[in-house]
């Protein structure tokens, strides 16, 4: 019993980590007033670069960083369109959701001899206890032997929370998302803050994608990122645009994904058709949004392009 609970926890954490990175990305971008519906696309490109760089360099950390950077660069396109040119943020985000997978597939065919998937990464992200766990007979250590990305995402969440609520930068970021005109009259550079927030949002989403290909699986295919970006976005809303709330929401959605694995195993006592099971995370997302997001309070100027002097 204890072992299966521990197993459930570790699988939940494994599946939650990519969602958490992306969710935190959503939090920072939306707190600065930019709706980032393109998280899905940024995760996809991050997942590809994570796998590709991880494969060619043989270093998972290099892959992880490359994934983040590629997500950040893609996010800059969103920033240029939605901040500088005041494009509709939803449309710009949707465009990224096409560009991300398209670019990943194109590069994959170029780099991996026409294949739509990358070759498996030889060295994935290491686990906390590494090979020590394999030798150990302690079930606790075996079960707690989760990937390093999990503690990293929790550290990121704490840092983001601290920055948003305890520092002058956070005060400025949130003021830009709530009332950019007020921030502007106080000499705060609204555009710079928005750009920075969107870039960081892309980097975090890219980390999320890379976590998927370097810690959860060890290769990239077209279906590696299938809706995680949107689930993360739902988690941002469910978590009331706050880092800690979003983390909790991501854990819930991660748990739903873990259930798919746990209940879908062939040795499971209850046999549920796998296609029904795979719906679980998405259905849960939908239900949570319908039930709990009535009194949600988005940043007031979220999604509204800021035009100086209006």
């Amino acid at each position, binding site marked *: 019993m204890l072992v299966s609970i521990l197993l459930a926890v570790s699988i939940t954490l494994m599946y939650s980590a990519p969602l958490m990175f992306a969710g935190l990305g959503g939090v920072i971008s939306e707190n600065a007033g930019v709706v980032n519906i393109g998280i899905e696309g940024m995760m996809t490109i991050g997942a590809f670069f994570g796998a590709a760089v991880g494969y060619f360099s043989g270093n998972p950390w290099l892959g992880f960083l490359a994934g983040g950077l590629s997500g950040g660069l893609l996010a800059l396109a969103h920033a240029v369109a939605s901040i500088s040119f005041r494009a509709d943020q939803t449309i710009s985000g949707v465009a990224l959701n096409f560009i991300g997978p398209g670019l990943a597939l194109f590069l994959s065919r170029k780099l991996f001899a026409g294949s739509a998937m990358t070759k498996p990464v030889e060295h994935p992200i290491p686990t906390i206890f590494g090979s020590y766990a394999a030798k150990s007979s302690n079930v606790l250590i075996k079960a707690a032997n989760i990937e390093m990305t999990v503690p990293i995402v929790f550290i990121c969440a704490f840092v983001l929370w601290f920055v948003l609520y*305890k*520092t*002058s*930068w956070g*005060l*400025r970021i*949130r*003021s830009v998302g*709530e*009332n950019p*005109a*007020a*921030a*502007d*009259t*106080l*000499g*705060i550079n609204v555009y710079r803050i928005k750009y920075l927030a969107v870039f960081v949002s892309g980097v975090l989403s890219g980390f999320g994608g890379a976590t998927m290909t370097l810690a959860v699986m060890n290769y990239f295919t077209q279906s590696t990122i299938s809706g995680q970006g949107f689930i993360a976005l739902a988690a941002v809303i469910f978590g009331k645009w706050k880092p800690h709330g979003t983390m909790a929401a991501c854990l819930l959605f991660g748990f739903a994904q873990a259930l798919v694995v746990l209940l879908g195993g062939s040795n499971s006592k209850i046999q549920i058709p796998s296609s029904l099971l795979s719906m679980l995370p998405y259905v849960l997302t939908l239900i949570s949004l319908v039930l709990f997001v009535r009194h949600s*309070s988005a940043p*007031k100027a979220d999604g509204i392009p800021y035009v100086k*002097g209006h």
Partner: protein
Amino acid sequence: MQSQQAYAVEMQSIYKYFDDFCALNAVNLKVKKGSIHALLGENGAGKTTLMNVLYGLYKADSGRILINGEQVEMKNPNVAIEHKIGMVHQHFKLVENFTVVQNIMLGKEVSKAGFVLDISRARKQVVELSKTYGLTVDPDAKIEDISVGMQQRVEILKALYRGVEILILDEPTAVLTPQEINELVNIMRNLTEGGKTIIIITHKLKEIKKSSEYCTIIRRGKYIDTVDVKNVTEQQLASMMVGREVNLVVAKTKTNPGDVVFRIDNLTVEDSRKIERVKELSLSVRKGEIVGIAGIDGNGQKELVEAITCLTKVKAGRISINGVDLQNTSPHNVIKNGITTIHEDRHKRGLVLDFPVKYNLILENYNRPRFAGHAILHEQAIHKFAQDSISRYDIRPENCASELARALSGGNQQKVIIARELSDNPELLLAFQPTRGLDVGAIEFIHSALIKHRDSGHSILLISFELDEIMNVSDRICVLYDGRIVAEFQQGEVDENGIGLLMAGGERKNGI
């Protein structure tokens, strides 16, 4: 050199163009150090544009700006802030879900180690400043929970926190009660005693007389004069502002109201969030009478108007005209029974901005036989009716029947609405903020139209946030507070201060 030093601000022949439109045409402004200087002009005269130039939000096309005798190029607000100029905008620039302290320090945070906020030290500074100048605020309250008057004090504190010496206040009294206005005038005095210079932008004459030492008048972007406020009357200021003689108070005779035409009994209305906004309200309007409802925005006015016009359902109570119940029927039924309405927001509810003026003039009557038969519009009749209305109500430009309503100025748009709403001689005209955002000339016109309608034996229910308007136009005055009529007076029984106190929820004392 010495004489120049006495001026905190000098703006010399400032020009500012927006495309072809000349917003500022050789405007001069000299503000003495330590004085309260009013900037007077109608809407669109260029007051705010001039101040935006001074604050660096707009760049002048030519002209010089001197701050304390030194020429400065105002490239952006940061230059203005460097020269200790602060501006309190008409629409407050506050972050609603931040506390007072957070709003004040935003952009100039007090912090430890360079980036970790030090709220307690910032709080101390805010408390100190608020004591020095008598600006009472609750430092830990969130902006969304405090009154408009306190929000304004936060804005002033924001400027003081940044060490301003020259403070620009844009229409500071538009949202305040008479008591809050007096408090603001006291604060302004405290500030000038502390050596600060204040420029106040306004089109309200009474407040200039009350607060300012000097007044510069601009009209259609042109500099008219700078006067010593002591030596001029409100009437003279008004004439200089408008460019012709105006009547600040429209003449009207006493009426002898007839029977009760319209009545509301124990009306209760909830808003969309199921909160009661109108609470067991009763009132009546008699034939040939103007009843004014005084009150601060947000005390149930909106819900009351929506209930009368059947735009919302009432929870309990009756609304009736000539004995016919109207509550919970339809807007069409309300109009059919002789009630027409001037809504608060002329763009949202008053006009179809992208329709020509002539169609806007028949929005309510388009299906009358004279305008339409068998679903076909009689274009000629409509056009003729529009021409008549345009000349009767002096809507400008005079050939605007086929122009889009959007192209008219605010005052002329409002005249279109009045022309339409009065065209069928309604039994009761419901006028909600009928002069919102209009200047003295247009206000005069609209007030006299209201009084003319009354004199022809009809009734008017006037709901306004402008106490002056209520005082000048009404025959009977009701004070609305928190969804209830808390007091009722005949014209002349009470002065502004008495009503102001009741509007703010004060107790009714003997003698008022």
